[in-house]
């Protein structure tokens, strides 16, 4: 039965192709000119002046030299080595780590590690309380003082729509669900863990995205790394953006398919690879590829750039490749009603073959989803590793997702969700334009709520993070292993729950810290624009009321 059903569309396809080439011409054209397509908003990646690159390398050179010097002192026994040691009984085993692997951790990361893993002890909302830590031995160990730094403005959490909240009224349903179900499920979906609420969630996700079907899983990372191997395998080709998230890369590697990398958001590079792949086929045997899959993200979390989806969809149609879109950061955060990048560009969601996203960011919960055509999801349900072997999602978490999704869709009878989506867009535009005026180099798309400010030099990264915390602003800084070596940066994640007063405070402090640390590298001139933003705090306040 299945066999015959499959052969029919194949037959149809062939006749279509043999029929005339005219059709395909229209096809192409359709891909390029979609009805209500929005233009890509400007996306900037300003080059830093030459001296900055030189100073950055110099900085790394100095710390590396000092690292070797300290290693030398440790070897001589002049400096106490504080790193945890192997057990006496196992000294003669093969060392667990190579010495050079730890060089970076021991000598560079240890000096600055107070900028990461800062523990907090409150809700990760627009403000949070950071627990104060002191280190008696230059960050080798930390001791919590028991004091907290209260009301630090949170610019680090992925709380795009402000749904990380603890308002008892909003969380009524979640609390009820906890009371009813407890916290876990203690079984897999295929066995006894398929609750009715799982099915409800999957139906709602599909309706939210405007696709046929969806599947929800317990962890965003695993959604990528465990499902990609079910879709592609040997003899398939994956074209992956160079800045894709580790989970996508891991999934691609586990799949056994050939991976080729194209330049970040560079359509020429992608098309060249596609053309070559289709024309020459697999290496050595020159057999045609079984499938070609393009893997991209909606918003790139370290660059703040938005994928050039209309171009990619056109290319995908022309070369008959499949498209895997990871909307981890973009779902809920962009698009006029929060439906992600497809809505931002006014594209039809059915053009995306595999749509993936997470619930951890905009939805303030945990887990991930895969959505698309019914056949796709059915197949994954039976063959994807994580669907078969891992525990089902926890009921209270699902309830939170349901609550948030209904709120965004307006199914709860309010416009709170829509107001938040709009507030986020407004905050994003305001924050980005002000930073540009101040002369910081920021990366990414004007629509993206992820705002990376380039810091470049390793010393400045830490100084910036510490200075901002002193001014009660929590920021995320990222350096070498996560970014190119010369492009260390601070990342700001905007939230709908940030009020205008908070953003102004952050901007004021940024301006001062930027001057103190000489962080304003931009050489562009921004003409002081007429103020488009409502200055009389009205919007901020109204948003505040809405969000409660």
């Amino acid at each position, binding site marked *: 039965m299945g066999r015959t059903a*499959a052969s029919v569309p194949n037959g149809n396809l062939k006749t279509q192709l043999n029929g005339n080439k005219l059709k*395909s011409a229209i096809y192409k054209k359709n891909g390029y000119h979609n009805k209500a397509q929005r233009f890509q908003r400007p996306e900037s990646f300003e080059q830093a002046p030459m001296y900055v690159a030189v100073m950055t390398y110099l900085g790394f050179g100095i710390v590396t030299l000092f690292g070797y010097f300290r290693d030398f002192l440790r070897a001589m026994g002049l400096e106490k080595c504080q790193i945890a*040691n*192997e*057990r006496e009984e196992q000294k003669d*085993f*093969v060392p*667990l780590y190579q010495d050079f692997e730890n060089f970076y*951790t021991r000598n560079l990361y240890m000096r600055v590690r107070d900028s*990461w893993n*800062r*523990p*907090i*002890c409150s*809700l*990760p909302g627009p403000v949070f309380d950071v627990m104060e830590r002191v280190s008696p031995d230059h960050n080798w160990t930390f001791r919590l003082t028991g004091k907290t730094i209260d009301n630090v403005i949170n610019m*680090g*959490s992925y709380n795009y729509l402000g749904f*990380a909240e603890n308002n008892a009224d909003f969380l009524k349903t*979640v*609390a009820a669900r*906890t*009371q*009813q*179900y*407890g*916290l*876990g499920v*203690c*079984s897999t979906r295929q*066995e*006894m*863990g*398929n609750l*009715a609420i799982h099915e409800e969630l999957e139906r709602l996700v599909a309706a939210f995205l405007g696709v046929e079907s969806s599947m929800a899983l317990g*962890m*965003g*990372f*695993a959604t990528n790394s465990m499902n990609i191997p079910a879709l592609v395998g040997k003899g398939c080709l994956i074209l992956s953006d160079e800045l894709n998230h580790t989970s996508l890369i891991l999934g691609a590697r*586990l799949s056994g398919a050939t991976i080729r990398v194209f330049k970040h958001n560079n359509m020429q590079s992608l098309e060249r690879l596609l053309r070559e792949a*289709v*024309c020459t086929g697999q290496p050595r045997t020159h057999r*045609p*590829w*079984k499938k070609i899959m393009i893997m991209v993200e909606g918003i790139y979390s370290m660059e703040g750039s938005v994928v050039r989806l209309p171009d990619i969809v056109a290319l995908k149609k022309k070369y*008959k490749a*499949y498209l895997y879109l990871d909307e981890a950061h973009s779902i809920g955060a962009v698009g006029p009603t929060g439906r992600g990048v497809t809505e931002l560009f006014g594209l039809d969601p059915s053009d995306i*073959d595999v749509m993936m996203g997470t619930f*951890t960011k905009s*939805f303030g*919960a*945990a887990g991930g989803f895969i959505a698309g055509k019914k*056949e*796709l999801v059915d*197949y994954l349900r039976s063959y994807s590793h994580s669907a*078969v*072997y891992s*525990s089902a999602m*926890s009921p209270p978490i699902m309830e*939170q997702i349901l609550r948030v999704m209904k709120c965004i869709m307006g199914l709860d009878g309010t416009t709170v969700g829509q107001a938040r989506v709009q507030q986020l867009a407004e905050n994003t535009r305001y924050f980005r334009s002000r930073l540009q005026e101040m002369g910081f180099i920021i990366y990414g798309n004007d629509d993206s709520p992820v705002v990376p400010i380039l810091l470049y030099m390793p010393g400045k990264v830490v100084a910036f993070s510490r200075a901002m915390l002193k001014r009660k602003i929590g920021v995320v800084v990222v350096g070498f292993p996560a970014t190119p070596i010369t492009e260390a940066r601070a990342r700001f994640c905007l939230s709908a729950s940030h009020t205008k007063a908070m953003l102004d405070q952050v901007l004021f402090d940024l301006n001062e810290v930027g001057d103190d640390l000489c962080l304003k590298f931009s050489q562009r001139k921004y003409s002081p624009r007429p103020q488009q933003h409502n200055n009389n705090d009205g919007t901020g306040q109204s948003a505040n009321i809405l969000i409660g």
Partner: protein
Amino acid sequence: MASGQQWVLVEMVQALYEAPAYHLVLEGILILWIIRLLFSKTYKLQERSDLTEKEKEDLIEEWQPEPLVPPMSKDHPSLNYDIVTGPPSHKIIVNGKECINFASFNFLGLLDNERVKQKALTSLRRYGVGTCGPRGFYGTFDVHLELEDRLAKFMKTEEAIIYSYGFATIASAIPAYSKRGDIVFVDEAACFSIQKGLQASRSFIKYFKHNDMEDLERLLKEQEIEDQRNPRKARVTRRFIVVEGLYINTADVCPLPDLVKLKYKYKVRIFLEESMSFGVLGEHGRGVTEHFGVNIDDIDLISANMENAVASIGGFCCGRSFVIDHQRLSGQGYCFSVSASVFQARDTVSVCFSAFVRPGILFLCVSQRLSGQGYCFCVFLSVCQARDTVSLCLPVSFRLGILFLCVSQRLSGQGYCFSVSASVFQARDTVSVCFSAFVRPGILFLCVSQRLSGQGYCFSVSASVFQARDTVSVCFSASVRPGILFLCVCQCLSGQGYCFCVFLSVCQARDTVSLPPCPPCWLLPP
């Protein structure tokens, strides 16, 4: 200098005069040949002809990829999951029918523990649901630190690290240590997440027979000989043994004391996955190490998920700081994933606490008689027990030589189904048995197991059962130890036929856990 040069030149000219004519002709031809080669077009081994643009377009036009997913039949069993309504506690409503739950890994019955729920609600009011950030970027909450601290104390190790997803715990931990070129010795019955971790590590993997220490030692010896041959390589090749405490696929306990002996003999590190045994084995639920009284420091890394006995989500790894700290930067599931939901962490904190404080509690959940015709009984779990008694999270716990009979019958109009899924372990001289069976309404399920003369036995069935529409089809996957009689009879009540199948397999295939829908079975006429 100049004169010397001249002398050479003169000699050359002289030689030219003296040379025979044929020699000159030959040299002349050779020189011409070289000149020709120099100016001729570059010679190609294979004539390359670039495709023209039109040809390329045609190729692109012609190429048809395979469909993204192969077509599936509509009645594939995994497309029609059983729907559970209501909480999966000891009673469970499957497809609208109330059943006794033998299927969930809720060993300690903590899923519907009121204290846990209250703790979770307190946390929910304070922290909300999500953490909205990975651990490095303000995703570390005080409760995470507290949980790690308590887990480390509970397990009596130096440090613990928590993950937000049970499946990802061991799958991230293995590749953090074992890289390309390293060697991992794995039990061939290892669970799926271990397999995924190994695949991600790209190490050299050697499987040994399930729980067969001789086979492992053989492999280790082979490796030792190999090392002597190439000592330079051996000095940088890390070696690991990866085993499960309680195998989810076979329900066997790993022989940990023997493994520790081998560890020191051959200088291999041991990674132990305790998802099934954590909270189940040992006097205080600390797992296999406590069960065997092995010093926990002898195990390099212990990983477990908190989705089974602890009835929450997430997982953790514990061990010495020297080992564990490395994951904070290298464990992919840790660095790149958003941290475990706080209120869940919170709930686990309280669970650990109660497990810590009150060892030796036995929960007896259900022992129920069903409308007069059949009995079904189960003891849902035991946290811990005295050392000399049988200890289990078992449907029924019994002593040596006890006949275990579980009969369930369909009553007219009031069907029930039960599924047992569990773990078994065997103390040295005691017997423990556990079943995993899933029986649909309309099936009589009889399972008899007998002790053979003088020998303890252990058998486990771990599987799922599928049922065709109106014939009986029950399939088991059982791993049966030598010398065990395993008899399984299933009977269809509607009188159409009998079906019985004994499906013995020592170990399951490497990457399958569950079974194909219905393996062939013998149909006997009534």
